[in-house]
Each structure stands twice: as structure tokens, then as C-alpha cells.
């Protein structure tokens, strides 16, 4: 089972601390001091609609539409998660369209021109960006500890199994309370 980060909407207060923690953990160009509106690209989005407030981010699907959709083989399963190999990404946005959670974005930034020639074409680099579980960060996902109400959780196989056991035990108790036909 792939691991994923999910929020308890009942605890979210919409403060967006997680968005900043995410953007700081994934600074464009690797420099958080140089953060600008253009390089501020959090991979989770706090959604505030009528009656719900919660961050939305990649569910690391086990049979992921983005993986199936990618024509260049840039999206792969690795370390119990879905990861993007940026060197293969062509910025075609098929994954963006495929994702049912709206968790994928394609960010295009100018790249250094290959030559000084006046005929040199515009150079850009595209990246399909989504939650990567801060895979290179030793302490794990940056958003989770930043949340002041502790609404975000990393769900792995063990945590999922524990939750299932708890729910099943509760269901058994509810039945013991008396189901009659």
C-alpha cells in the first residue's frame, strides 16, 4: 500500500501554515530565502468552501490515473508512493487532467537559453508537481508537524491496519448492543 498524507477536516482552521511549510520544503531553485510569488508553489491547497475547510493533496493512489496517463513515463511508483521523475516530464498536463483530486499542477519556469543566438528559441522547464511526501527529507513530510491543530496525518500500512482494527472493534461492539431481525 502506498503511504499518503491526509487531513482531518474537523480539525482544520484554514490557517495555511501547512501551505507555507510545503512551499518552504520545496523551494524553487532550492533556496527558501529567495521565495517569491512566482516560486511559491505549495503542493497542497487549503480549500475553503461553504461548510468545509481542509487541505487537499495527492492521495498516492495505488492504481494511479496520473501514472497511467503519463505518456513519457515520468510518473512512477517508488518508496511506497507516487513520484515524478522531473527529467522525463514534458509538461503535457495529461496527469493534471487525469487526477481526480486536483492534486497535480504543472509548473513551468524559464530555463537558461542554450546559446546567445538571436535565433535561439524560448527555453523553459516544466515540472509536474504534487506531494512527494518530502521523500528526501529525513524528518518526513514538513506539513504534518507544522499544523497547529494536528489535523494532518501520514497514513501507512500499519496506521491503516490499526484504524481498520479500531473500526471493526467498534462495529462489533455496536452489533453486540443488539441487532434483531
Amino acid at each position: 500500500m502506498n503511504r499518503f498524507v491526509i487531513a482531518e477536516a474537523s480539525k482544520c482552521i484554514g490557517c495555511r501554515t501547512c501551505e507555507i511549510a510545503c512551499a518552504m520544503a520545496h523551494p524553487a531553485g532550492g533556496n527558501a530565502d529567495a521565495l517569491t510569488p512566482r516560486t511559491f508553489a505549495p503542493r497542497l491547497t487549503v480549500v475553503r468552501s461553504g461548510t468545509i475547510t481542509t487541505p487537499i493533496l495527492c492521495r498516492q493512489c495505488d492504481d494511479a490515473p496520473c501514472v497511467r496517463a503519463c505518456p513519457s513515463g515520468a510518473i512512477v511508483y517508488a518508496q511506497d508512493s507516487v513520484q515524478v521523475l522531473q527529467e522525463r516530464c514534458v509538461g503535457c498536463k495529461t496527469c493534471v487532467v487525469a487526477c481526480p483530486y486536483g492534486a497535480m499542477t504543472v509548473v513551468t519556469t524559464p530555463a537558461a537559453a542554450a546559446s546567445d543566438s538571436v535565433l535561439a528559441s524560448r527555453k523553459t522547464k516544466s515540472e509536474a508537481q504534487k506531494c512527494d511526501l518530502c521523500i528526501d527529507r529525513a524528518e518526513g513530510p514538513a506539513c504534518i508537524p507544522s499544523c497547529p491543530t494536528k489535523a494532518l496525518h501520514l497514513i501507512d500500512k500499519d496506521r491503516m491496519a490499526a484504524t481498520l482494527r479500531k473500526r471493526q472493534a467498534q462495529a462489533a461492539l455496536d452489533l453486540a448492543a443488539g441487532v434483531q431481525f
Partner: protein
Amino acid sequence: MKKVITVCPYCGSGCKINLLVEGNKIVGAEGANGVTNEGELCLKGYYGWDFLNDTKLLTPRLTKPMIRRQRGADFEAVSWDEAIDFAATRLKAIKAAHGPDSIMVTGSSRGTGNESNYIAQKFARAVIGTNNIDCCARVCHGPSVAGLMVTLGNGAMSNSINEIEDTKCILVFGYNAADSHPIVARRIIKAKEKGAKIIVCDPRYIETARLADLYLPLKNGTNMALVNAFANVLINENLYKPDFVAQYAEGFEEYKAAVAKYTPEYTAEITGLDPQLVRDAMRMYAGAPTATILWGMGVTQWGQAVDVVKGLSSLATITGNLGRPNVGVGPVRGQNNVQGACDMGALPNTLPGYYPVTDAAAREKFAKAWGVPSIPAEKGFGITEVPHKIHEGKLKAYYIFGEDPLQTDPDLGMLREAFSKLDLIIVQDIFMTKTAMMADVIFPATSWGEHENVFSSADRGFQRCYKAVDAKGDVKDDWEIHSLMATAMGYPMKYNNAQEIWDELRNLCHLYTGATYEKMADLGYVQWPCETEDHPGTPWLYKGNKFDTPSGKALLFGTEWRPPLEKVDADYPLGLCTVREVGHYSCRSMTGNCTALQTLADEPGYVQIHPDDAKTYGVKDQALVWVSSRRGKVITRANHNDRVNKGAVYMTYQWWIGACNELTVDHLDPISKTPEYKFSAVKVEAIADQAWAEKYVQTEYSKMKAGMRKAAMAG
């Protein structure tokens, strides 16, 4: 790398932070295990420190004293000696010509600390000889202080922030904890998880409304009617505690008579609330074994604010929800040290420690300690009275310390015009601000993080901030600047450090005497009253139901509801209410210079509007629009928002371009003089040429930033 303990400089929650310091530079922040935050921080705590590195994102740090020899001329950087002499000479001349009461001084409810506020008020009272000292409590929880002082005897939260999670019922009235105090919002969530009932009274469907058991979306400007209806239900349904009232309260018969006509049926038309909902709310509140009322600016920023505070206090009193743990009244203070500025006497009617200026014995005690013949006995002016007193010719000089009234006070056009009539404006700050741009003298000060000090959190908790880095530039601690001014004006004043000041004041104020620097060391937390050094401090007030009123009893209060001053009409059909942005603080001079916070939210801000109203006025989501009132016109971005009620629009108050205070009305509560920020009649108009509008915003914003940069960098 070293870790330096401090207290967050942004709201009154009192969160302890470890600043991570390398060399003389802060490189990060992490939550420390403080009493109120238990290791948690919000976005401002985590990402709100890099303004100290002078990022110049919004405005530059002030690094040298500056004077302006003529109005309209450029600033001129001068030595401290020259700047002090320039300011003191002029201030002395004004005092000689027009008397001490022609000078107005502010305290600062922000990062400066308690010691500097004590010194600012000492400067006003002992050196100038006036009670004209005030702070931005006036524009926020002034009514809570004024109201609760009368009904219970202390103008602060009766119980502690950490008790909120163990109460069994929370009545949230006009208080959006999620945006104002995320760390208090966290306690509300924990209370809910522990089984507390939550009642929310707010016209907007705020985050706390999502967890509420009962949500009362009252019409804007009907607080007093609802509070009276609450009292009416408690009394008529016998939900109150007659024994408690008989023993510990006074004024019940008058109270009962005052609220008699305010049945939920009578108030339904005023508040728009179903009578049953009002009854259910009070059955829930009175039925809980412990209940806490929390309120914020939704109660205080009205022309009728002190009355509502007294009414809320009365609800807690008649249900016996005072004088024990996990109950009480909670005006949750907005600015990090607005409680402290009040504690230190940066108010026109109280000396440090809340001794009234009318108390002859207290005046004598302070006069003796300060070595002056006497201290004035008449209440001074509040900051919101300043423009009127200028127009009456009574105020000639304004010494503004760590505040930006030309951003945060109402009806800015009127205020600018009044400022231009002053003979002398002195601004003491860390950043160039809109107010500093109008100054004759600018004193640059050290910031939070660059000096040590004590802050008071919203629940009366004194905590220490340690110095993390040395300030850059030719700047001085605030109390040293006031001391130099005092000395130049003929009152020698000298302190070697903040602790000397703290020790002077705690020995003058019985409420704080036991709060020593040693007890507050590291993560120490001392809540006043703390009268002796062996006393641990007081998490909750009114033990034994003994109140700090003259009679020792809690005063009950109800009165007639008054509608807001301005009425909506065909020309201005919407009610504007000013609110908070979670990632920004006060006038934005600090958070606007923080990389992450500035990136998350920048000009021109938003006007939140119900989608139905947006449709009526032809306003598209995210489009730039004009918002105008009878006083001004600003450009901002529309945010279609189905959590706001129809007929009202909401704007946050820290933007320069989308500056809602160009629109707000200068209508004050008669007692606390707090402005009615929560209701001004406005209209919202679509802009056909969006490309022009986008360009206009960027051009104007760049122009303002460039102007301030140029002024601050003057040679």
C-alpha cells in the same frame, strides 16, 4: 547554532518560540513548550521572524535618527544628539506655550514590551505632566477593559487560555479564533473533542461555526439585542442561579427590568434569529457544569461596545460561571502586548497596575516614586479622540511610539488632514510606515528579538523575551530613547537595562510585585495578580466569588439596544465590516517584510462578498472592484464567499491599496471611544477595464514602496 527563547510578537496567545540563531542572524523558528502553546505555533510564529533581517520587501528598517526641518521637505539623517535636541526643544516650547495637555503620547501594544510602555507613560505623566497617553487597546479591546472593570473589577480574561479545553460549553461571540488566534482555536477544537458544547454567534460562518452545536447568524450590529434576549431567557426560564446572584451580585432588579422586553420573540426581527435558537443556546449555556464566554472584535468594535461587554459579563455572573476553573469571561486580546500596554498604564485613565488616575493616594505614591510634585488627576485623551482634539486646537504635538494610526485608525482621510495641522509629530518605530512618512522626527528603535523585555499574554501571563541578535544601524532601545527625551526636557532619567525598569514598576504595583525576572526565566509564566514573590500567580480570578469592585460584588447590566450609526441606503447599500487576515498582523510593517507571509497574501487584498450580492452588483470572482463609502474609495479584489451573509461585505485592514480604513466611519463608543469598524455603509462597483485596474494596483503599490524606501534611506 544557539536557541533563544522568546514570545511570539504577533497575537495575544503568548506562544513561546525558540529562535534559531547562527552568528548574528536568525535562521529559523521552532515551537517551544510554553504554557499556552505547548510546542505548537501558527504560520506567523514559524515564518514571522525574517523581517529582522531587513528584507525590504515592503518597507526598510529605520537605521538612523531623522528629522525634517520643514513640512514637505526630505528627511535628513542626523546624530542622536541632534535628533533628541530637535524634538525636545520643540516639545518643551509647545508645553510652555499650550500646556502639557496639548501633547499626546502613545504606548505600543506591539513588540516593544512592558518596560518600554511603563517608561512611555512615565514620560507622559512625570516629564510632560499629562494623562494623554493611550495605546491601540482603544481600537480593539478597550471596551472589554472598560466594561469588565466596572462589572467585575478587572479588565482582562478571568480564566486562562489552557482552561478553554476543559470547559463544557463555549459561547463564542463575535470572535474568529481561527484567523485571530490559531493557537486559541486549537483549544476550542480540543474542548470539542473532550465533549464540550460550542455555541457560535457571528454573522459569518466562521471556522468555529463548523464545529458548533448551535450557530446563531445574527444580523450585523444587533449584539446588545441578542445579549439582552439571552438574559431574558435565563431569567424567565429560571435557568440562572438565584443563590449566586443573591450572594455575589448586585443590580439584579434593574437588570431584570432592563431586559424584560427583550424576549426572543421581540428581538427576532432585530437579530434575524429564530426565538427557539436563542432559547436553545441559553439552555445549553446554563445547563453546562462549566461554561466560558469568548469574545473578540465582533463585540468591541461597535458604537455600542462597552454595554455589550457588561451584558456578556452579566450572563456569566447570573449563571455562576465565574470564580472557579474552566469558566469565565474571555476577551481574547488581539495584539501580542495590548494586555501589557494596558497593564503598564498606557491608558489615559489608569496608572500602571490599574490604579485610577482619580485615586489621590495612588497618584501620591507614583509622584513620590518618580520624584515629581504631582501627577495630573484628570483623565487624558484617547487616541481616537486625537483628530477631534486637533481640530478643537487642544492638541499640538503627537509622540507616536510603535503604532501606525494612518493605517489602522478609522476614516484615514480625516485623520491625515488633522495630522497636517499638528505642530510636531514624533514617530518612534522600527520600520518606515505611513505614519512615519508624516513625521517631523523619526527615532529608530530596536525590534523584538533585538532587546529583552516582558510581554503580557491575553490571559494576564507575564513572560520574558530574550535578546536573539544585535540590532544593525544606529538604533536604541525604546526606553532609552524616552529616557534621553526626558533628560533633554529637564527630567534626568537613566536605566541600565530592562530589568531595572521592571523592578521599579513591580514594586509600585501590588498586582505584579511577585513577578520577578527570575520567576519568568526561560519558559516561566506568571499570571497577575501575583502580589508576593512566593506566590505562583493566578490562573483564574475571583476566588470565593469575591469581585474586585468597590462592593466586592459583580455588577449586572442591561440596557437598550442601539443600532449602528450609519444606515445602508440606495447609494451605499452594503454594510462593510473590517476583519483579520490570518497571515498578517496589525499595520503589516512586520509581516509584510516576511518572505513567506508576504508571498501568501499581498495587495490589494479582498472584499468578501456573498455570491448573490456579487451577482446583483455585477462583480466577478477575483476581479478588481471599487469599494467606496461617503469618506473614500479604494480598489480591491472580489472574493465570492458563501460564508458571508448577504448585505454585508468584509475587508481586512492591513493593505495600503485596498485600505478599508479610507472607508470606515469615525463613530465611537461613548465610554471606551472605540470606533465602529464593524459597520460602514459602502457600495461595490465592477471595473470594466481589468487590465487597467491590475496595472493601477501595481503602479500605485510600487510608487508607495519606492517613496518609503527613498525616505528611509535619506542621507
